[in-house]
């Protein structure tokens, strides 16, 4: 049986907006919870890097907000977290529930680290030493497939374009993790900037700032690094009674987006 951890954290005002939990805070809490689960039940993330030359890099993620959770609702939040291996050791997946109505799920790709101070690595299957730390019930041979390409295709073919915009950014160190590449929740913050800039200038998009996020799907192709310049290219759609924003995070080199995010709001 898969192992779950349950614990509480005190709330603070910085975790929230007036509409509910900050999506980027959910990512940070969730990633931290996954690290706690790894340390408790498998191998700590630090030991994975330092002792097993294995890094985990988030490749795909989804946040669901079934009901808004607000700052004044409670003094603490309950976190429930589990982890599992997928795709015969080519993925590590974590699932985190925050309270009853917020869920985060993230799929990481293992990297074989080269042993240099920049923590450079290449995608590789987890070694037997790492796989041995998981129970049989925590190993699923089926790989996770990102829903983002299909979701984008459906929104783009069936949705009605409402507005488009472009918001430039530079990645600074406070947005980075230990290897001077962006910490993956920053994608959530950056696409929020793109959406809010669009909604500020288009009256028809106000639910994009006036109502809580219901769901966000993220796909990471390639990281941004310290001082990399980029832009969030945002398109708002009306799709299936929802307001949907498709965001492409582009580097200045152009070409394939380094990340894609799809945000959904009730209309």
């Amino acid at each position: 049986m898969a192992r779950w951890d349950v614990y509480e954290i005190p709330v603070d005002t910085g975790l929230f907006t007036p509409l509910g939990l900050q999506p980027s805070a959910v990512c940070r809490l969730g990633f931290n919870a996954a690290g706690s689960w790894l340390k408790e039940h498998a191998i700590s993330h630090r030991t994975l890097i330092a002792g097993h030359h294995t890094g985990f890099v988030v490749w795909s993620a989804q946040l669901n907000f079934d009901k808004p959770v607000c700052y004044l609702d409670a003094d603490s939040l309950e976190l429930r977290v589990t982890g599992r291996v997928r795709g015969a050791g080519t993925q590590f997946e974590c699932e985190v529930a925050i309270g009853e109505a917020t869920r985060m799920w993230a799929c990481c790709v293992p990297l074989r680290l080269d042993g240099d101070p920049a923590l450079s690595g290449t995608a590789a299957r987890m070694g037997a030493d790492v796989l041995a730390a998981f129970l049989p019930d925590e190993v699923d041979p089926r790989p996770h497939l990102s829903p983002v390409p299909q979701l984008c295709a459906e929104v783009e073919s069936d949705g009605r374009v409402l507005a488009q915009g472009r918001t430039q950014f530079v990645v600074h160190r406070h947005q980075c993790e230990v290897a001077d590449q962006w910490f993956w929740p920053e994608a959530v913050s950056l696409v929020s900037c793109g959406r809010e800039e669009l909604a500020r200038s288009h009256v028809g998009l106000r639910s994009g700032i006036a109502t809580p996020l219901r769901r966000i799907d993220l796909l990471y192709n390639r990281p941004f690094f310290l001082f990399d310049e980029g832009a969030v290219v945002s398109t708002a759609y009306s799709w299936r009674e929802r307001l949907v924003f498709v965001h492409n995070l582009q580097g200045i080199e152009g070409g394939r987006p380094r990340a894609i995010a799809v945000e959904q709001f009730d209309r």
Partner: protein
Amino acid sequence: MNVRVNGALLRFTDYRREIHVAAPTVGAALDRLADEYQPLRPVLFDRLGRLRATHKIFLNGEQLEAEQLGTPAGDADSVDLLLAISGG
């Protein structure tokens, strides 16, 4: 030639993004760069002195394979040094 260093490597070049290096080939330029910025050497090269496979090298926008590092390059050429991904 002008060597452009990307974000994750900047802390090993004292945060200099563009560095002029006088050398006859791309490989020689990387070696001189590692001489000038000592913390960069273990990042770029393994213990046998080979360029780590985790780095991608581009000469005037064209990617070079490891066996092409002997390609001659002059003052007007640009080399991009790119780290594809880090495991933090």
